């Protein structure tokens, strides 16, 4: 009874679950519904994408020539409108020969903002940098000293104005919002109700009504004969509006701090402000970073509304550039697409940055 060795037949290799082909099989052709969807979408893409590409790129006119653009109307986009008008769109009514000043000022401000976002720069000297760049920005924009010709604020416009309103709106609103959020959780009833009324009142009305107030009612609020610059009035309006929304986000973080933290701080003998500054706020703010970034993005987008009260930031500058020019007015949609790209670039990079910082913050929590 000797057992004869008999080799068993080789089993087939296991089905591959990684790599390109299995991924396509699982994600594009999983079941009949998925197959149908994929085929329909691919069909639509084949039907429409070539048309869009030929309109936007193949048949498009890039030369700043209105006649050629007019001839290509309907079959190709006229990006020539951007080549022709980009300085008016980007800088608004700022005097043409002095446009290097907003350019330098905006690049400085953007560099400062980007540096503030990078971890390697998070050190005390950054504050010094802010203290240098902000005055430099206003000197360059406003002029009137160092041999620069004075340019009044109603001539400021375009992208520099958008970035300025957003930056200062954020920088001013944030501290205010922290104070209001703390006030809303205060144990002193009068302070708490003042903060509640402020936040709910502002959050209940649209930004446009706050801007109307800034442009029509602020002049009435000031002593007779004095009225602050329209830019300052609008900036105050944006700040007050943004602070109410930010305060709600910050309050969310404050509420998430366990009571034990505060009690522990008190039993160590820390005062109210010491407790908030050293124990509560660092934890609470870290927790709501994504929400705060969303608010910042919202402020950036909301600056487009100041065009309704006649400040020519990016959106307003485009209308300014094209509405008065009969040759180029028909190509406004291309102009809109151009500034859409600018807005999208800023907002999208802010939201990417928010994701990155969210990951960084959560590193300390996952062990």
């Amino acid at each position, binding site marked *: 009874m000797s057992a004869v060795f008999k080799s068993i037949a080789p089993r087939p290799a296991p089905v591959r679950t990684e790599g390109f082909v299995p991924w396509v099989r*699982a*994600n*594009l052709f*999983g*079941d009949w519904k*998925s197959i149908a*969807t*994929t085929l329909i*979408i*691919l069909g639509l893409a084949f039907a429409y994408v070539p048309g869009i590409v030929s309109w936007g790129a193949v048949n498009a006119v890039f030369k700043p020539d209105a006649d050629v653009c007019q001839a290509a109307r309907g079959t190709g986009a006229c990006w020539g409108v951007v080549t022709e008008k980009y300085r008016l769109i980007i800088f608004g009514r700022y005097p043409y020969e002095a446009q290097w000043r907003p350019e330098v000022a905006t690049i400085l401000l953007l560099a400062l903002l980007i540096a503030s976002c990078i971890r390697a720069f998070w050190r005390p000297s950054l504050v010094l940098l802010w203290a240098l760049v902000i005055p430099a920005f206003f000197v360059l924009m406003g002029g009137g000293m160092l041999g620069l010709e004075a340019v009044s604020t109603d001539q400021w416009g375009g992208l520099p104005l958008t970035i300025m309103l957003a930056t200062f709106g954020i920088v001013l609103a944030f501290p205010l919002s922290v104070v209001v959020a703390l006030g809303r959780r205060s*144990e*002193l*009833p*009068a*302070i708490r109700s*003042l903060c509640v009324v402020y936040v*709910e*009142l502002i*959050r*209940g*009305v*649209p*930004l*446009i*009504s706050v801007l*109307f*107030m800034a442009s*029509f*009612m602020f*002049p*009435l*609020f*000031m*002593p*007779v*004969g004095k009225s602050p610059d329209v830019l300052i009035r609008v900036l105050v309006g944006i700040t007050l509006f943004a602070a109410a929304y930010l305060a709600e986000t910050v309050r969310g973080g404050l509420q998430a701090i366990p009571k034990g933290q505060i009690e522990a701080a008190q039993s160590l003998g820390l005062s109210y402000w010491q407790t908030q500054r050293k124990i509560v706020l660092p934890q609470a703010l870290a927790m709501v970073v994504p929400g705060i970034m969303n608010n910042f*993005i919202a402020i950036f*987008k*909301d600056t*487009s*509304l100041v*065009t*309704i009260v006649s400040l020519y930031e990016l*959106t307003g500058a485009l209308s300014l550039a094209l509405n008065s020019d009969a040759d180029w007015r*028909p190509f*406004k*949609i291309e102009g*809109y697409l151009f*500034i*859409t790209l600018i*807005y*999208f670039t800023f*907002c*999208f990079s802010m*939201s990417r940055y928010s994701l990155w910082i969210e990951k960084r913050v959560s590193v300390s929590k996952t062990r």
Partner: protein
Amino acid sequence: MSDRRPPKRRDWSWRSAAFRGLVYQIVAVALIGFGIWYLAHNTLANMAARGIQSGFGFLFQPAGFDIGESVFPYDALDPYWNAFLVGIANTLRVAIVGVVLATLLGTVIGIGRFSHNAIVRGLCYGYVELFRNIPVLLQLLMWYLLATDWLPPIFDAISVGGLFFLSKSGFSFPVPVWGLGQGLAAIGAVAGIVLAVIYKRWAVRQFELTGQVRRTFPVQLLLVIGLAFVGWLVGGAPNTWSVPTRGGFAMEGGGAASPEFISVLLGLVFYTSAFIAEVVRAGIASVSQGQVEAASSLGLARSQSMRLVVLPQALRVIIPPLTSQYLNLTKNSSLAVAIGYPDVVSIANTSLNQTGRAVECIAIIMAVYLTTSLSTSAFMNWYNTRAAIKER
């Protein structure tokens, strides 16, 4: 040994927390009070200096301007308060239609983020990132430009089956001629909804008592449609429709949506639905995977586990941020002023320019939006408490 509390402090000191709290509050209230008094004083002085009249008396004077579209009859000779009512109605119209459409679109896109199909997932992601990163004002302006510039003129309107027309002057569609039959059908539908709710309650109670599962949705649908149909039959089964026809300068007959209305609606719906999609996605993602696995191990089908297990739990996470999106949409409808849709802000803006009463007109805008916001959030809070976890 029983009652040895620390002795109550009768003497308070200048340095006690309570005293300091009182001082802070008095100082804060006094500062705010002084600020308000100062602003009011300046305002009155400025008004006197510039000869601006104040008060709401102007509301009863004739407005003297025409309004492009109105849900009820309005004439340029009507008083200002009537013009404001038209504006409020227009705001509510675009906000309500917008909320419904944005919810539907946002839910579809949000659920699409969980699709098994990679292209669908990618498209939904692209949609969200694209539309929420472009300012809503810019979107409104672009839609308006497309509607007034790129659509064909009226004699060349895009037509679907001779019933729907799309042109520079808006979208026209057939509407039933309102009569007895339609009225009875509406009453029937309302009665059907009431009966459907009662039936649902009864079915749930039967299920709890006997464990017998009854089909609810088809019966409910049948109740509503059936009763509406009966009402329509009783009213004599009217079937006259007012179909739009091409006139010389405008579409005649039928219902119509102006290009301004369409642009505001499209802009608000696309912008808000991107945010709603994110809210829905976060809500569904918040339901733990174990819940879905437990449901499928109980033998529930995928659609059942979505409807009975995932959605009810996700709703609790979804409702509060959804409410604030609804409020945002309503507030963003104020941007209609930029493209000339006669909402309450644009009426107030015109009145402000005509009468110079800035304080009153801005107060009216704020009052309208505050009322809308506060009542919406009250309603949603009520709904939220119903959907919240019932803990024992």
